[in-house]
């Protein structure tokens, strides 16, 4: 089945006001293009889930799309704070965001339970400290074999998972290399999966290297072709992280006025990802484009 459609269609037919979503990726493969389309379509009251909500989640918060954040580390990686999040979560804020907080291992375990079809996941963690004290979803169980006390977290089933990958076919068989984050767990835990790819390739090409497929097409509902959809994040083998942007973001986002102006120019003021890319400084994409490091490939013969 050909599931190829535009980002606009994929978001419009998957995301719902009040629903939950995860735009996965751990510094790598973060689909900014999807976040921007969600903002443009004006969705509200979302529960945004991710281990590392970063700039695109902060943009969703600033745009008023998010009611609740489920997370384990919220910052501008390597640079500083998420300012919309801070403005909506510190003592002085008028409109407070609902926060549900874990450590990485804890939130990942919620996705693992969801992806494995189990009601909860056990982990050796939270024996001391305050994370479990302030989060009633973290409980304990006694191991029936050893008697050991373990922490547990409940299964998480995001309504929508958005997974960016290097290449996919039209059925959504998605191949990923480089940092894998929790993309597989997020995809299998979710009720609906949108795959976004740098390249759309033939199923035959996917079949030539089946070990590379992280998400199988049978759980995917939409496939979007969106080259450079991750900028300023990176895509191994395609382009580097735009670190200058992450550094500049600190100044852009600190004040609501400059933040809003940026959203106007790069999100509301453009129709789609192509529009966004055309507003970036000329020569930037060439500068970020990856230098090849090809691996030899393996023999699948028998």
């Amino acid at each position: 089945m050909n599931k190829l459609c535009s980002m606009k269609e994929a978001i419009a037919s998957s995301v719902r006001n009040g629903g939950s979503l995860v735009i996965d990726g751990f510094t790598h493969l973060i689909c900014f293009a999807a976040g921007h389309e969600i903002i443009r379509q004006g969705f509200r009251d979302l529960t945004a889930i991710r281990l590392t909500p970063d700039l695109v989640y902060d943009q969703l918060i600033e745009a008023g799309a998010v009611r609740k954040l489920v997370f384990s580390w919220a910052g501008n990686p390597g640079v500083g704070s998420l300012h919309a999040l801070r403005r909506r979560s510190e003592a002085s804020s008028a409109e407070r965001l609902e926060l549900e907080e874990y450590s990485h291992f804890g939130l990942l375990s919620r996705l693992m339970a969801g992806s494995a079809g189990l009601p909860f996941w056990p982990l050796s963690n939270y024996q001391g400290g305050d994370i479990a004290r302030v989060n009633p979803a973290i409980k304990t169980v006694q191991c029936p074999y050893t008697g050991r006390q373990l922490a547990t977290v409940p299964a998480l089933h995001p309504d929508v998972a958005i997974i960016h990958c290097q290449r996919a076919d039209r059925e959504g068989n998605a191949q990923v290399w480089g940092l894998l984050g929790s993309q597989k767990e997020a995809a299998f835990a979710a009720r609906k999966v949108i795959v976004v790819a740098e390249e759309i390739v033939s199923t035959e090409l996917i079949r030539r290297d089946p070990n590379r497929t992280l998400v199988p097409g049978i759980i995917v509902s939409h496939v979007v072709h969106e080259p450079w959809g991750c900028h300023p994040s990176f895509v191994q083998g395609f382009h580097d992280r735009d670190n200058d942007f992450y550094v500049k973001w600190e100044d852009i986002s600190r004040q609501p006025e400059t933040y809003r102006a940026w959203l106007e120019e790069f999100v509301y003021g453009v129709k789609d990802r192509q529009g966004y890319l055309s507003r970036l400084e000329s020569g930037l994409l060439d500068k970020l484009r990856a230098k090849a490091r090809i691996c030899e490939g393996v023999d699948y013969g028998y």
Partner: protein
Amino acid sequence: MAIETGAGPTASERMAYRASQELRDGDVVFVGIGLPNLACNLAREIHAPGLFMIYESGAVGAMPERLPVSIGDPSLVTNSLAVVGQADIFQCMLQRGLIEVGFLGGAQVDRWGNINTTVIGDHANPKVRLPGSGGACEIAVHARRLLIVMRMSRRTFVESCDFVTSPGHRVNGRSREELGMPGGGPTRIITDLGVLDFDTTGEAVLTEVYPGVTPEQVRQSCGWPLRVAETVRQSTEPDASVLTLLREKLDPKRLYL
């Protein structure tokens, strides 16, 4: 900011060097970005070429050609021994007990080595919202040796953390053993003034100062009545060749120094 050739070590250089001395050849290290990353690279250059670096982003046996700008960086992938999902990092590497050394820092630390990276003030109504745990809590629970690297001041070395993100030797009066934490807990706090060890009760004790620093000065910079060891050693400082290595090869853009 350029540093003149021949200038003495800065606080960051001292800390990176002192931290590097804690690493042994062959140690499996869970590497954080910033000074810990630099300390690992330095140890590999000087005395621990077989240091095995694991990053929470999934890179195992990484050998980054450039200093990574964030915990996930494409240079961590290129040339790694393995790249795995984060589920494998936390379950098969950390929870399985494969991590010898972990590194953490934070906004607050107390005398038991408890660390706060979550909030300043009340959790429900914070004065400052910090990034949160990330992988820090589970690193503190599972690493066999934990190194804390933090600059020292009364604001950061506190009587009691506003929030304990990552547990140290004693939380609310209970020991790691009582709480059932598998890892060994903090072994040292490496600061810009000196080094703190932990005694058998799990309390931090000043054991080293940098040249020109007195134990009294360190006590003044600590938010609790800091215990001082009977003999306080002088920390070794990076010599000219180490400084050249740090400044010209390992962090020429001074991302972290």
